[in-house]
């Protein structure tokens, strides 16, 4: 299985996934079933996670495809520009959904402002994602276009090429991103350790619900690192796309991302009270979470050694 194969499997998930999640959200609101609304937020979060490999495999596919004859490089670039906007909106939707779940868990009722924001963002995401998908289809399927019609237009205000020149033309940007990426790394890892070491039995007198309030700071660190990481990938995709270490880093990142949903939203984690020993399952999950983040850091550090970066 190679990158184009991955991309063909994953590329429908962001579009169809957000359509399904929007449907669940609306159905929950219509039927006044809060459980359904809550599930829709969880689905948005997971779809946002899956959009990461969908995007990355697309970048790798584009690099392969550009080498082939009779391929419009311009069409690939337009598809990429659209994908950056759609992926960005998808991340914002996932972040808002995460924040909604975090608040909901804390106060035990939904925040309607948050649900409204998620709905608006997800509709924007779906529209741009569908446009991006159409552009992607047109690269290899001219039969999609009626004779004489123009290809679907990409966004005019953002270009992968301008992000690329921004990062590579200014010598100070790359090191600044490095500093931010490492500050984001320890901010995230510190909160991850605090929360998961409690599960494993350190400071047992503290109920899990008190630590839950720390989680937005982990997500802030993650956000800083996704943005800085994306800038590098867009600027120098050749360093990452054929890099086995990057592949594993992203794999463990997805696992760790799922764990973040678990500690944020699931009853099993929330209900660990003061002076209570966490269940064996919770302990195993906490151990797995720390291990996943450690592997994310390991394979990040090994990018130049196991792979070809730098």
């Amino acid at each position: 299985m190679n990158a184009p194969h991955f991309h063909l499997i994953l590329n429908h998930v962001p579009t169809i996934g957000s359509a399904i999640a929007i449907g669940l959200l609306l159905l929950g609101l219509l039927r006044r079933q809060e459980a359904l609304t809550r599930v829709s937020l969880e689905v948005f979060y997971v779809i946002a996670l899956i959009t990461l490999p969908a995007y990355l495999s697309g970048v790798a596919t584009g690099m392969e495809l550009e080498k082939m004859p009779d391929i419009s490089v311009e069409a690939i670039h337009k598809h990429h520009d659209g994908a950056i906007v759609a992926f960005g909106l998808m991340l914002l939707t996932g972040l808002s959904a995460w924040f909604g779940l975090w608040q909901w868990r804390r106060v035990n009722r939904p925040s309607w402002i948050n649900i409204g924001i998620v709905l608006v963002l997800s509709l924007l995401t779906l529209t741009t994602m569908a446009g991006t998908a159409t552009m992607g289809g047109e690269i290899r399927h001219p039969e999609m276009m009626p004779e004489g019609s123009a290809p679907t237009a990409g966004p005019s205000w953002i270009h992968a090429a301008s992000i690329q020149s921004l990062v590579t033309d200014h010598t100070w940007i790359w090191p600044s991103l490095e500093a931010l990426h490492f500050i984001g790394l320890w901010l995230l890892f510190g909160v991850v350790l605090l929360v998961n070491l409690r599960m494993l039995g350190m400071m047992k007198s503290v109920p899990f619900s008190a630590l839950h309030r720390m989680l937005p700071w982990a997500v802030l660190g993650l956000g800083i690192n996704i943005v800085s990481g994306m800038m590098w990938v867009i600027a120098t995709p050749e360093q990452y796309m054929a890099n086995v270490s990057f592949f594993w880093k992203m794999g463990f990142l997805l696992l760790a991302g799922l764990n973040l949903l678990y500690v944020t939203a699931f009853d099993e984690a929330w209900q660990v009270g003061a002076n209570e020993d966490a269940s064996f399952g919770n302990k195993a999950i906490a151990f797995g979470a720390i291990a996943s983040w450690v592997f994310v850091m390991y394979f990040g550090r090994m990018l130049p050694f196991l792979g070809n970066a730098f």
Partner: protein
Amino acid sequence: MDFIIQLQHSAVMDWVRESGSLLGYPAILFLHTIGLATVAGLNGAIDLRLLGVASRIPLAPLNRFFPFIWGAFGVTALSGVTLLIADAETKLRSPVFYIKMAFIILALINLQLLKKRVFADPNVDTHPVTSQARMLAFTSLVFWVAATTAGRLMAYIGPVAGLGS
């Protein structure tokens, strides 16, 4: 200084630097990363708590993290010294290296002050967080951010080694 540079050319350090083994330079670099993430991360989380985040977490139980932070600092320091010796000629000439060391020393003094002035008090949870504790939490965050930034910039500013860093 000459002594450290002599060490750079010892057989062990030649191996660390040039063997190409994943157990050499890459493994030590990884230990340094894990160590710094644990030290600055846990210290940073404690700072955030003192600044008002998740104020339902009692302070006294956080005492248990101090030995953990110092243990992780041991790993960071040992791996750091190894990385320094392996590339001493470059790093000892880098002004950013000394800036980094200064901020780490400040951050560690700050950590000790947090322990002695805030967490050593057995009644720490019976009164609101003092303004002195909040000040120490704030400076701690500033020092770790500055140390991390300087650490990263060592690979870009001044003499830069050819090693992956």
